[in-house]
């Protein structure tokens, strides 16, 4: 991969955190990034933790006993939450990136009808599905498991 062109970033990390006058999608973008970074951090540890299985059942069971602690159960839910949100919000972003769910091309007159009539309902549907999955995952991790 080659380096990209450089632009000045006046606000830096602070600029990511404030959505300002932008809509709820701007805040989803921030959560998307935080969730993505969290999942990446977890995944790098998960490679080593799951590799313990090559040392046999005793080593595996010892590792799983440690991970049965309530703190790690909460961590498992946080990862599930992050994955469900990031995956479904990412699917929404890919659909929009590829030109689906953006409505017909029209003159951009504020308030943008495409944004309100097509993209906003898509966002709501995707977030409802994510919420249902997160609830099911939480029930599985904390109640049924």
């Amino acid at each position, binding site marked *: 991969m080659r380096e990209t062109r450089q632009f000045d970033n006046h606000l830096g*990390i602070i600029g990511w955190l404030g959505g300002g006058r932008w809509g709820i999608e701007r805040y989803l973008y921030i959560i998307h990034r935080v969730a993505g970074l969290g999942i990446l951090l977890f995944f790098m540890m998960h490679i080593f933790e*799951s590799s313990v*299985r090559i040392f046999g059942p005793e080593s595996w069971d010892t590792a799983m006993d440690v991970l049965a602690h309530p703190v790690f159960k909460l961590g498992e839910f946080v990862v599930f939450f992050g*994955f*469900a949100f990031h995956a479904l919000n*990412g699917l929404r972003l*890919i659909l929009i990136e590829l030109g689906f769910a953006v409505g017909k091309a029209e003159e951009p007159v504020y308030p943008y009808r495409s944004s309100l009539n097509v993209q906003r309902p898509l966002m709501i549907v995707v977030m409802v599905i994510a919420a249902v999955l997160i609830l099911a995952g939480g029930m599985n991790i904390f109640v049924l498991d």
Partner: protein
Amino acid sequence: MRETSGWIWFIIAGIVIFILGGLHMMTVHMNAILGIFNPAAGDAVDWENVSWRSRNLFFTVTYIFLLAAVLYHGFFGLRTILFELGPSRGAQRFITKFLWCAGIVLFVIGTYAAIAARSIGKVL
């Protein structure tokens, strides 16, 4: 052009993660509700279930694809975020090379574990 192809691979990797990562999440973290790919019943991380999946060629192959997809997608995303902070061109080159090296090392470790794990446990 290379940035564009990198971005397209980023999206393809995201779709692969959506499918294979979704399958992994349903298998391991929704086991009590769905109960799929856990032939010994009980917990998804019980040794009998883990060793069964580890010996299954389908899971070995999908683990390796998922590993590659997550590392590429994750590190490309991290690189994008870091580049937004406006590093110098030299720093950009260092970040790109460092992330490629880290990704390759983690991919080799994870792939070795996925292949080595095929010979563990007894057949159910």
